[in-house]
């Protein structure tokens, strides 16, 4: 379902998502998703490819469904519950590209990552 990436940001995503996939219902739901998301951080970009599971790879694929731009510091602030994801969006600490074109995909990923961060 999930590969174990060897880079730092990819590994963080893996740890966050692996915890969630102990829930079989979520697991079977996510398996049906078909989209690519680039998490574009100030460290480096990471691509999540949803297709019968999730593949996490260092780097950005061309033409992803969604691009989520942020900094690692923002990810840490959200994880530590010092900043809510909504506040991050309002302050443009989180920037979503592809939202208008792929609102369903954006919403799905947002919901998954917010749940994974436990906030």
């Amino acid at each position: 379902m999930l590969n174990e990436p060897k880079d730092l940001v990819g590994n963080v995503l893996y740890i966050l998502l692996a915890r969630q996939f102990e829930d079989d219902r979520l697991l079977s739901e996510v398996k049906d998703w078909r989209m690519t998301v680039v998490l574009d951080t100030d460290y480096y970009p990471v691509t999540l490819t949803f297709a019968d599971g999730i593949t996490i790879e260092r780097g950005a694929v061309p033409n992803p469904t969604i691009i989520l731009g942020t900094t690692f510091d923002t990810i840490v602030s959200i994880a530590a519950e010092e900043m809510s994801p909504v506040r991050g969006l309002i302050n443009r600490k989180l920037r979503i590209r592809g939202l208008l074109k792929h609102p369903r995909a954006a919403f799905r990923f947002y919901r998954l990552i917010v749940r994974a961060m436990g906030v």
Partner: protein
Amino acid sequence: MEIKQRLMKIVGPERVADGAAEKHVYSYDMTENPSLPPSLVVMPQTLEEVQQIVQAANTTKTPLIPFVTGQSVGGLTIPAVEGAVIVDLKRMNRIIEVDEEAMYVLVEPGVTFGHLKKYLDDHHPTLRYTYPLAPPYTSVLANALLEGLCDLSTRHGAMADFINGLEAVLPTGEVVRVGTGASGEGNWFSRYPLPDLVGLFAGWQGMTGIVTKMALQLWPKMPFNRHVGLLCFGEEPTIRMLTRIARTQVLDDSVCVSTPLVKMVSGVAAPVELYDGEPDYGMLLTVSGNTETEVSEKINVIRRIVNEERETDSRHVLISWEGLMKLMGDQWGPFVDLPSEMYKVLAEHDGLTWVGTYIHPKYWKTVLEEGRAIVEKYGFELIANLKAMKGMHFGEFKFIFRFPKDDDTVKRVRECNAELLDLALSYGAIPYKTPVWAAKKLQERLDPNFVMLMRRVQRALDPNGIMNPGRWGLDERD
């Protein structure tokens, strides 16, 4: 009478072994240092037995090697000469006394970190000792004698600084006590203001006698503790931040490791690389206090320094421990209680080694930069480990190698370690837990009169040259 018969008479035949299997087990450790089997192994249980073993060895001129678990990561218990007897002290494992008022513990050599931590947590919960990056089954006493580092080193220094005094059997068989414990039982409160004879044993790698008891400082367990992580980029900013934070004196401890080690603890499988864009280093910083406010203010001191550095590079990130565990895994939780947890990932292969050194702060960054280039040249995983020592009076650094013990890899490890040591020595760094090959390199750079003094002290204490001969490269007799 042969030494074997003498030893069997002292401890009983069941505690003397010279089978091939036993000799093999004691012939090597996890390092790249060459193996050599002992002639036999003896396991005393009392001071009197140790004394009689030493007296017998003097009669037969038999080399003795004090041993507890052999985990020094310096090859320090591998026999350096033929015909040696391993004196395995792990049966001497009593915690003899905990003095709550003067805050010390009196232990025998076989007491381990895991044993002591549990004992204090169960019976003296307001006190704590200090714990190293070593397995929990290693010896508290041996670690202090070898002057290594621990999880209070940023505040208090090397482990030998925790020694209040000790009891030892001299190489000629007399039992001595040094420190205030020499004045009677229950009085091991300090090693001063007497002449500091702890120095006749600490750092000597068992060449000056067998230490049979040691009094070690305990510290109040503070009611409030907090840990933070810090991810940082580049050697210069990393060392600058670590140095600045340590000099504020708010830290109990600091551990700074290269990012591959952070990823290993987070579960990334070997081999682990450092990729472009990743932070170069991760730090664990520990503070404590009597109130939550005191702890919060200490964290604010750290945060202020990090924020100043972030004006130059905003990628440096300070992470609360809860946030770090959420993002990097629950396995980070136990690490703050017992640093041994990090050791698990270093035991990936059958080989593990490092040359650890203490260094002047002004050279810390340069050695780290140049050392990293050497490790990368040899193609090993980049596992750097640094600690600010004793309020930043000096720094510690080492490059750790976990490796499979095939001939080619061992050869490369030896070459890389030698190059790293040459680099460190060129900047005046001094290795700790020094294997013989490194001690010989060190001697070339030390004042000859210092080496002469070491040799003179060792010969005065051990006229027959029976105690762990070959260590420190001091065995050549005129």
